[in-house]
């Protein structure tokens, strides 16, 4: 995993305290759709270095986090800016859809 992993505590800091514009991908190790989407996200990260944060949450390790967003499945990419939730992309998404969403927020 190339993306920095967030625990509940780090999530609070980055998203709510610092208000960083970023995305967080919720995934799990044995999910085959995640195995397709996570690398896509990883490849996008360098294009937005310093402008947009990329993080990931392992739902098996951080149950309270996905429960707090009442997520119903993985992978899900949640978008945030200034501590506010800016929507999500669910399931098998293409690179272009993620880029579009990032541009929208920036």
């Amino acid at each position, binding site marked *: 995993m190339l993306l920095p992993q967030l625990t509940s505590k780090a999530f609070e800091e980055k998203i709510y305290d610092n208000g960083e514009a970023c995305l967080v991908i919720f995934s*799990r190790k*044995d*999910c*085959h*759709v*995640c*195995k*397709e989407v996570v*690398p896509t996200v990883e490849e996008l990260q360098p294009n937005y270095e310093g402008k947009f944060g990329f993080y990931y949450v392992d*739902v098996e390790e951080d149950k309270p986090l*996905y429960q707090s967003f*009442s*997520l*119903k*499945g*993985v992978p*899900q990419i949640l978008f945030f800016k200034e501590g506010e939730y800016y929507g*999500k992309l*669910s*399931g098998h998404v293409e690179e272009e859809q993620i880029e579009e969403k990032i541009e929208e927020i920036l």
Partner: protein
Amino acid sequence: MGNTYDLIIIGGGPAGLSAAIYGGRAKLKTLLINKGTIGGMADTTREIVNYPGYINVSGPELMSDFKKHAESFGAEFLKDEVVGTDFSQDMKKVTTKKKKEFFAKAVILAGGCQPRLLNIPGEKELRGSGVAYCATCDAEFFEGEDVVVVGSGDQAIEEGMFITKFARKLTVIVLHDEGILDCNKVSAEKAFQNEKMEFIWNSTIEEVLGEDNVERVRIKNLKTGSSSNLDCQGVFFFVGMIPATQFLKGSGIEMDSRGYIPVNDLMETNLSGIFAVGDNRVKYLRQVVSAAGDGATAAVAAERYIEELDAFQNNIANSDKKVLLVFFNATNTESLEFSAIMEELQQEYREDYKIVKVDMATKKNIAEKYEVKMLPTVIIFDKGEKIKELECSMDKANLKIQLI
């Protein structure tokens, strides 16, 4: 050239990986391009109990063994998605999503399948918000909740039983009359004994309803035509698979109305040098063991095809002299006698001509390429180009005139 191969395999499921094992072992320079995780649909299977030699193995474990096996024979792997093809030349071209181009003498299509969507209202909109397609991935999110499963095949019933480990109640929506499931008998018996599982017969789903998350589904009884709502927090769709062959539209590859590719016993498609295997082809049994068999067959057929192609290149295209390509068949006496005459003639004109004999029984690709249907047939080549076809008579003088 770094992007040129003998064999390109599109897809990394059991069929593609088996082809890579055989291709690598035959010393073909082999590239396997795979868009997702290695193992394809088999990788999403928790338990495989019918692959010979493995009494009980998980899909990812078995597929990881397949991959190691292919790597041990030197097959190369690339993670990318093939989005375009050009099969019109001897060197077939594939283009990937990352805008790379690769060329190969033969291509094996092993792209597998993907879940079929019902395309009903709410299915797309609530995907990831209660609508799901993978129990391993998502079952846990429905702890203590009510879940609906659509379908009654192996996958629907087996995944359904897995979901009951988490869900409070699971309702299976089945098209058929009471008691009839499409899945295997062992699973059906287990399912009927599962206390958390309920069945709604003769029915299908018309709509998934809910604001931000799934709240209920609308169920239609096919016998009475009446509809009713069922409250639930999750819907898993297991309504079959469709072949992932859409990227081949316009490639000239023949497909049936559902997107499956018809092939012969050698896994050959209608285009020479292009083979289709596993869930990409029209077939009876779709299992890991039959996919592996397809991959092996296609790779061996591809190896023979490449051998012929190379032989043609070396003996005919690169020849300094003109080439007399003589087609014969050991069971056709006339064609044998005729090829003997041609050999005598070639001796007389050995400064200008060389002779290459093609047995129609084993080298059918060349015969097909030049549409040779009658025996005997002789085609004259100059620098790899067909310049004329001989008028074949047993009269030597007549033949001589045609050679000068």
